[in-house]
């Protein structure tokens, strides 16, 4: 059986679903970051696969963009996370409610 586009897309979907559940369920900020990384990477897989399928490099280019943005996001996010941890001694989502409307 040859690995085709569909397999990649299914993998991407599964990863996306895992990431989505993680985003919804995790209470720990660090794990939330992991979940978002999974989400982004699932999309990356889809990009790369489709790009390969069409023979068009735009998709792979976008995947690189996503990686770059994800990296910077993590950099900033982790920085904020550390500051928060130093201030409050935890990184529990339940305690971060200062944005309450």
């Amino acid at each position, binding site marked *: 059986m040859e690995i085709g586009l569909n397999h990649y897309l299914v993998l991407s979907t599964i990863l996306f679903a895992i990431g989505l559940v993680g*985003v*919804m369920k*995790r209470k720990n*900020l660090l794990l*939330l970051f992991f979940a978002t990384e999974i989400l982004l990477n699932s999309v990356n897989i889809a990009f790369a696969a489709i790009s390969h399928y069409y023979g068009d490099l735009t998709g792979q280019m976008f995947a690189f963009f996503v990686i770059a943005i994800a990296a910077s996001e993590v950099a900033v996010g982790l920085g904020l996370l550390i500051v928060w941890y130093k201030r409050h001694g935890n990184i529990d*989502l*339940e305690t971060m*409610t*200062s944005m309450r*409307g």
Partner: protein
Amino acid sequence: METLLYIALFAPLVSSMFSALFTTTPKKTFVGVIASLLIFTSFVSSSLLLALIVVNGSAPVHVEMMTWMATGDLYIPFGFIVDEVSVTMMMVVTLVSTIVHIYSIGYMDHDKGFNRFFAWLSAFVFSMMVLVMSDNYAGLFIGWEGVGLCSWGLIGFWFHKESATWAANEAFIMNRIADLGMLIGIFLVYWNTGTLQYEGAFEAFQTLDTATLTWIGIFLFIGAMGKSAQFPLHTWLADAMEGPTPVSALIHAATMVTAGVYLVIRSNELYSLIPNVGLFIASLGAFVALFAASMALVNRDMKRIIAYSTLSQLGYMFAAAGLGAYWVALFHLMAHAFFKALLFLGAGNVMHAMHDELDPFKMGGLKKVMKWTWIMMTIASLALAGIFPFAGFFSKDTILEAAFAEHHFVIYGVLLFTAGLTAFYSFRLVALIFHGEERYKIFGIHPHEAYRFMLVAMSPLLILAMIAGVLQEPFFHMIEEILSAHEYHIHSHTTLWIMLVGTQVFVALAILYAYKKYANAFIKVPDGTSAIENSFAYKLLYNQYYIPYFYEEYLVKPYKEISDMFWNKVDMKIVDASVDGIAGIIYGTGEKTRAMQSGNLSTMLKWMVVGLVVLLSLAVVFGLAARYSDSITVILSGLGVM
């Protein structure tokens, strides 16, 4: 000629504006003098115009001063015409105005608003001149509203009095109701004839169908009903007596209230095409003549009695005009202006003497102190009653003859009976005021005759009230060219003589009865105990058939209540509340969904996922719908939905 016309027209305006300069300053006699002189100038110009027209037989003077409104096909100029009809009115207006102006210098002598009074009075004369001289309906309407405005200002002249301002507003608003009719009439004229000029409109009337003409006639007459205080818009006239007496003489007897009659006479070419409306006008006129005379019988307010008599005489005029006897109506209008103004000015003298007392029962025996006033008022009353050889005999008897000759015997009968009533209430008043015991003494009043110059000013009216009858023939010959008049002659001379003598005897008997009943020593101030005062008829008449009460209870009060309800209930509770309600719903939704923004990142992410899922499913649904839209249409049409 044109210069004369402009002088006659604008001298009162100049007078008004001159006096208006001094409205805030204390009394200055020269204001009154100059105003009177200017009005007199206007009178002289009018006389010259009359002379030119009558003696030289020259064509009517017609000028177009400037454009007023012009848009689309509408073209309304400020145009003025002096022909036989308008010059008659101009003479009446300027003559009575001049006299009233001079008289007012004396009458308003001690009043704080002396200067203001002359400003208003001259403004009134100007408006009246515009009314009678305009050559189109729009110009007439300017004057029409102008006299209404001045009447408002003059009835409410003593604006510190609640009753005066109330009467002023009543007069204005009631006239406005009629003016709406007039306005609609004007619109009808415009859209059917394409012009508002009398000349063009009258020409076009000949080709219009009767239904349209009837509507035009009715609506214009509604306007006339308001200004001439015909039933049911009559109540304002009696209340208007709150104004200073010279105003009552000029506006509410001699000139403004006759504007309605003037309108009908002016539109004679219209009304002669629609005899049915004419008959209605005549019937209403006859009814009002009787109706007003009956209210005058028992009234205990000197000025109101005269006001009702004015109303009654206006009924006569309308009866004549409605029957097509336009020149008779105009002649009675003229004669009436003279003796009624005289009567009012005499009443003014009495009021001055009696310190503004109006109840004739509290007077009596005044002929000793006020000899000249007594003579004048008696002669005016004789003229009003239609006794030979005074003015009223010639004008009023001709109306009766006209009614008889036209075979409208019911109208004739009503008018004849009213003539008797007129004589009775006129002399009831004279008898109560000037004869009998001096009942005023118990009130501690020391009456005095008016200033001499006031009496001199009144004398032209006195002379005219006596001799105006001789003018009938010349007047007829002057007017017949324009009013297509014919003299009313009863076919048989015997009938005519019987009618004349019979009327005279009937009227004379009424006068004698009035003297017998009221000129004796037993008259007392009524205190509401006598049998007659408690009779139903007396109460009915005394309360003016309860019409003012009816208006107050069933029109004025409900209007106020509905207005309050509209504001408090509808506007605030329904219209505004529903707007606020919509805003409230939006605000409330925000308030309720606020909990979504718990600030908890986890919850917010969950909502985000929900949103994502919704959007994705929508996209899928729409995508599928777009792809299979053809088959969906087929299915739906199969189901009968599309």
